[in-house]
C-alpha cells in the first residue's frame, strides 16, 4: 500500500535500506558489547565510536506492545482502518515498530483480533518479518503472526541500547 514515506537520511541508514532492497534485515551491532543499535545511530551511544557491524538478524520476534487505530490520521491509511501498529521485540533484543498482519497476510485488526479483544491479546505473540514494497524503490520490514502461537525463546543477543 501507499504509505507516508519513511525518513531516509542517506548517511547513517544507507546499509539498512540497501539490506531491505536486497531482502535482508540487518541492524548495527556493537563489536565490543554485542548490543544491537536501533533505531539506527551514527555511533554506539556507549563509547561514541563507529565500532559496529551491520549484521543480518533472524527476523523473528514477539509483540511487545500494540494498538489499534480506529481514527484516520494520514490519508494513505484511509482504506486500511482499523489496523494494528506495534512494537516488536526481536529475539536479538532490538524493538522495531511495524504493523501486525495475520498469518494469512491480512492487515485488518477486526479480522486479527475479533470483535471484543482483551487488552493483552497479542502481547508476547510470535511474529516473523517480511518485506513490504512501498514503491519508489523502498521496502520496509513488516510483521506477520506465526501459525505457531508459542513465543520464541529469548535471544542470544539479549539486549539493545
Amino acid at each position, binding site marked *: 500500500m501507499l504509505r507516508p514515506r519513511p525518513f531516509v537520511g542517506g548517511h547513517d541508514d544507507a546499509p539498512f535500506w540497501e539490506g531491505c532492497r536486497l531482502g535482508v534485515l540487518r541492524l548495527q551491532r556493537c563489536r565490543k558489547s554485542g548490543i544491537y543499535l536501533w533505531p539506527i545511530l551514527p555511533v554506539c551511544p556507549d563509547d561514541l565510536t563507529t565500532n559496529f557491524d551491520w549484521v543480518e538478524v533472524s527476523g523473528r520476534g514477539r509483540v511487545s506492545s500494540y*494498538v489499534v487505530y480506529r*481514527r484516520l*490520521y494520514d490519508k494513505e491509511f484511509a482504506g486500511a482502518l482499523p*489496523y494494528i501498529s506495534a512494537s516488536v521485540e526481536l529475539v536479538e533484543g532490538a524493538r522495531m515498530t511495524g504493523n501486525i498482519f495475520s498469518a494469512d497476510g491480512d492487515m485488518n485488526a477486526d479480522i486479527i483480533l475479533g470483535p471484543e479483544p482483551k487488552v493483552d491479546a497479542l502481547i508476547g505473540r510470535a511474529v516473523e518479518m517480511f518485506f513490504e514494497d512501498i514503491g519508489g524503490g523502498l521496502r*520496509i520490514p513488516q510483521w506477520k503472526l506465526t501459525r505457531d502461537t508459542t513465543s520464541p525463546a529469548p535471544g542470544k543477543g539479549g539486549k539493545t541500547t
Partner: protein
Amino acid sequence: MSGATAVAAVGVSDLTMKPVMSNEALAAQALKRALAECSLKKSEIDGLIVTSGAPGGVDYDKTAEVLGLKVQYTEQTWAHGRFSNPGLHNAAMAVYCGLAEVVACVSVFAFAKRKAAHGNIGGEGDHEAHRLGGGPHGESPTYGLAAPLGGAAMAWQKYLSRYGYTGEEAAELVLTQRENALRNPEAAMKKPLTKQDYLAAPYIIWPLRLLDCSLPTDGAVAVIVTTAERARDVCRQPAYITGISGINSARNEHSFGAPWLGIFQQHPQEPEIVSVPFQMAGIDRKDIDALQIYDAFLPQTVATIERFGFCEPGEALSFIQGGRIRLEGELPVNTSGGHLSEAHIGGWGQIAEAVRQIQGVCGARQIEQARHTIYAHGAGDCTIFAREPD
C-alpha cells in the same frame, strides 16, 4: 533556593473548545488577569518565559511586542507542554540569580485552532513525527503510528497488560476530574459525565477512548514569579516555590509511561521513585494537599502517581479508587479538572491551580487549608508550592 522565590499571581484566559480569538489576544487576556491579581505594574516585568510558539502559540519576541513588555531576560522552549515545569523553574532561577526580578511566564496553546484546521491533533502536517528514529511520542507515520495519542495508547497497553487491569478502572479518574471541572467556572467542559458515558465513549486508538484524551482547547496562562520578599509586598498570599525537580531524559524515558514499563526502547530496570523535591521542600508525600498532574492523556496521570511514589508501581489504578483522589479525599488529583476536563494549556493550567489552591481562591473546589501542593509530570519533573516559605 527553597522558599526564596514565589508565584505572586496567575491569570487564565477564556478557555474555549472552539477558536474564538487570536493567540496574541489570549496571551494579553491572561497577562491582564494576572496583573489584576497583584499590585505589580506591567512595566515592572523584566523577564519573560514562553513554552509554546508559533503556529500553536506565540513566540517570545511577539509576546513582548504585543504585550508591550521590555524584558532583559527571556527564554523560549520547544513548544511542548512537557516544558511547563522547566519553564517555571527557569523563571525562579533567573529571579534567584538576579538576572530578573519579576518574570512573567506566558504560554498560549491553541489546540482548538489546530483541530479546526487539520481535524486531528497529530497526523498530516505534523513534521516532528518524521524525525530520524521516531517522533517525540514514538510516532512512526510510515507504520500508521501517527499522533501523540498513538504513543500514549502503546504505553497504556503495556501498563494494563503488565499489571493485569482491563482499563475500566480508570473511569474513577476521568469522572473525578470531570466533577472537579464542573466546580470550576473557568473550565471549558461543562457537561456532566457518568461511568456509562465513559465506557461507551468510542476508542480512538484502542485501548484509549476519546474521553482519555485532553480537550482540544484554545487558551493561555500567565504566571508571575518574583522573590519571596517582593511577592509578600505585591500579593495577599504568595505560593512559595519550595521544591523542584527537572525532566529526566534517557533512552528508557518515554512521554507516556514510567521508565520501567517497557515502552518502545525502554528495557528492564528497577523502578526509580522521585524523592529529592520532597526533601528539598522539607515535607513528606503525605503532606501534599493537592496533586496536579500533566495529563495530555490518561496514562500520564497513572504513571506520574507511581513515579512520584504516591503508591507502588502498578498499583495506581487500585490506589485511585474509593474516593481517595476526590476533593474530599486524602490526595485530591487535578482539582481544576486537568487537561481532560478543564483545558489543555500545556501544563500551565495545573500550575495555576496548584498556586490558587495555596492562595485559597478556588471557591467550590477549594481544598480546606491547603498548605502544600505539587504540579508533577511523568518525566520526573515537578514543582512544590507552599503557603509558608519554610
